[in-house]
């Protein structure tokens, strides 16, 4: 396994560009060899680089790119238990599992994430209110630490630290997950435009019991009385039908990084207005293949390049149920007041199912995810104002996202950090961890 200095390691937000020292092993035994030797600056395993911020960087240290460890180890078609190396993507899992009538129990908004990454960030999806986080469906983990290899099960302390542990507890070599049975690869989807935040809360509450998947998009072109209007989408898997996998290719792609940001100011508002109109036109019930419903952005390769050379920040917070209505209204208001807006603003209520990881992000309440083009100090100041609202509400931020969470804000949201630190492998490090620890 050869480590090489590379300038092309970027996270999905493309804000930070610092050369990294990376190796790409193909077999598990190569990683064990690397751990035997002294690695200045520490190690960190990374996957598809779909995290937006700095949790995938280990500047001055070493990165292990896990993407070539992408083999399935076992798949029981009777029980839906799948074991695979950490570099397997959820897309690969879907190609294998869907024809057999299974689907990952939780999928984030992109299928281009690795199994190891989904686990290390304890990702969630549109079904959080019924399925909880990804980690709840992990039944076993093969973890390689600098002091040896071990297999972890739910209930182990190290298991709880590794789920959502951002790769800091060692290298996740493989994991075993319980897949969900599906009778069809399509969903019955219902699109409902709503015209205020109040209407959103009512729709969300009315849909939790009847629908497995719920999510809303906020139109940031709307002002005044229409503030907070958007599109509410809810869906259930169809009970029967064909079991067809997604197509591997992209429908469109952004072939190069545009030199300036295409999604800011007037163009962003125009995008919002257009998107609202198009979605409003699609209102009502319809049938969608899973890829269209769960991963609409995956149809466009490298869409993050639209934000230009300076990249963008994704800001995602969760606020507890008790304060969520006021907090979400305050957050949306602050963004509009700053004249910033966001092209992809996603609002979702989270259920009461506890997250299994020590540092898992979701909690019962509501989560808001926003994209802000990087305009330097102005953007940082806005996020800092939003941090205040989130802290006041008793909420917290998602480590995989903005890449600048201040240490105090992190500590306020994650009081378990000190407990977690005891499980961090002494030979592991990341830029994120150096910032918040």
């Amino acid at each position: 396994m050869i480590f090489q200095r590379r300038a092309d390691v970027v996270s999905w937000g493309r804000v930070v560009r610092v050369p990294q020292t990376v190796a790409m092993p193909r077999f598990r035994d190569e990683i064990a060899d690397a751990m035997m030797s002294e690695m200045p600056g520490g190690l960190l395993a990374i996957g598809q680089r779909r995290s937006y911020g700095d949790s995938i960087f280990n500047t001055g240290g070493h990165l292990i790119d896990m993407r070539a460890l992408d083999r399935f180890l076992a798949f029981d078609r009777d029980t839906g238990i799948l074991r695979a190396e950490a570099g397997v993507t959820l897309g690969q899992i879907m190609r294998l599992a869907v024809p057999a009538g299974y689907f990952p129990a939780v999928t984030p908004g992109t299928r281009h994430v690795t199994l190891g990454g989904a686990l290390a960030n304890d990702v969630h999806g549109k079904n959080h209110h019924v399925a909880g986080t990804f980690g709840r469906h992990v039944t076993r983990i093969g973890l390689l630490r600098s002091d040896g290899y071990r297999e972890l099960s739910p209930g182990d302390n190290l298991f709880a630290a590794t789920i959502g542990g951002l790769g800091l507890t060692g290298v996740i070599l493989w994991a075993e997950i319980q897949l969900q049975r599906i009778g069809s690869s399509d969903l019955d989807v219902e699109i409902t435009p709503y015209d205020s935040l109040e209407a959103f809360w009512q729709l969300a509450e009315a849909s939790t019991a009847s629908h497995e998947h719920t999510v809303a998009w906020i139109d940031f072109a709307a002002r005044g009385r229409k503030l907070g209007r958007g599109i509410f989408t809810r869906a259930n898997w169809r009970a029967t039908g064909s079991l067809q996998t997604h197509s591997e290719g992209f429908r469109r792609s952004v072939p190069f990084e545009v030199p300036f940001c295409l999604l800011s100011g007037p163009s962003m508002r125009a995008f919002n207005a257009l998107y609202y109109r198009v979605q409003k036109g699609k209102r009502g019930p319809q049938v969608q293949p899973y890829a269209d419903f769960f991963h609409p952005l995956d149809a466009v390769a490298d869409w993050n390049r639209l934000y230009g050379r300076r990249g963008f920040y994704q800001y995602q917070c969760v606020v507890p149920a008790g304060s969520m209505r006021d907090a979400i209204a305050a957050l949306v208001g602050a963004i509009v007041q700053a004249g910033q807006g966001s092209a992809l603003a996603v609002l979702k209520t989270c259920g009461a199912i506890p997250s299994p990881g020590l540092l898992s992000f979701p909690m019962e309440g509501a989560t808001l995810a926003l994209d802000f083009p990087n305009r330097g100090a102005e953007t940082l100041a806005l996020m800092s104002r939003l941090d205040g609202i989130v802290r006041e509400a008793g909420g917290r931020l998602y480590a995989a996202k903005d890449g600048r969470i201040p240490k105090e804000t992190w500590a306020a949201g994650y009081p378990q950090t000190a407990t977690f630190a005891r499980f961090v492998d002494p030979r592991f490090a990341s830029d994120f961890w150096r910032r918040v620890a």
Partner: protein
Amino acid sequence: MTMAARSDAPKRIVILGAGSAIAEEAARAWARRGPVRFALVGRQPDRLEAVAANLRVLGAEAASYAADLDTADAAALISRMAAEMGRLDIVLLAYGTLGDQQACERDPKAASQLLHTNFISAAAWCLAAASALEAQGHGSLVVIGSVAGDRGRASNFIYGAAKGGLGILLQGLAHRLTKAGARAVLIKPGFVDTPMTAHISGRGGPLWSTPARVAAVIVKVAEPASKGRAIVYAPRFWRWIMFVIRNIPERIFHKTRL
């Protein structure tokens, strides 16, 4: 073996050097296309088993044969695999080592070791496989060569000599096997982003390819119906690059640092 038997599923495929990145991609591509029974040969049992387990989940049958390809008895192992599998439809030879040209120049032992791995042992496997294919009257022998075998260059001519020699061998085997209804093809990949080239800086340019793209060429030329040449470049544009490189006059070529 009759035409009918040839189309009998599953396809029987032997991979020599099954732990190589290109070979594993080819194996996955074959497994996705239909029923396959693999015989995987390589040095490290754990790695073979990891490759085999994945192919099994993808729906193929896979047996591992741990052996050092450099020193194993090629003829004996080929007959054993042919007997255990019933017949051989495809034999892919995918192992090799880039070696260290400078070390080889200093130490003739290292040079002869490099030549042994990349040519002598490979030739033994090719000859053994060819005989098996000839006897059964069908099948494809596909061997991974290199564009380095097209013209001797100061930077890697020992590796190049071995791969060049393999080219002549495959041309001869292709000639011989035609009469029996079997085939032999040498694939010449250009720059491929694999662990073998991980030490080279500046990877990822327009001339660099991926194991998956080379594997797609392998899968295509290995088809019995394929009427391609005995020497195939992967990707194809390397044929034209190497045409130019072979024809650069010596007095100019010797001034380059290729």
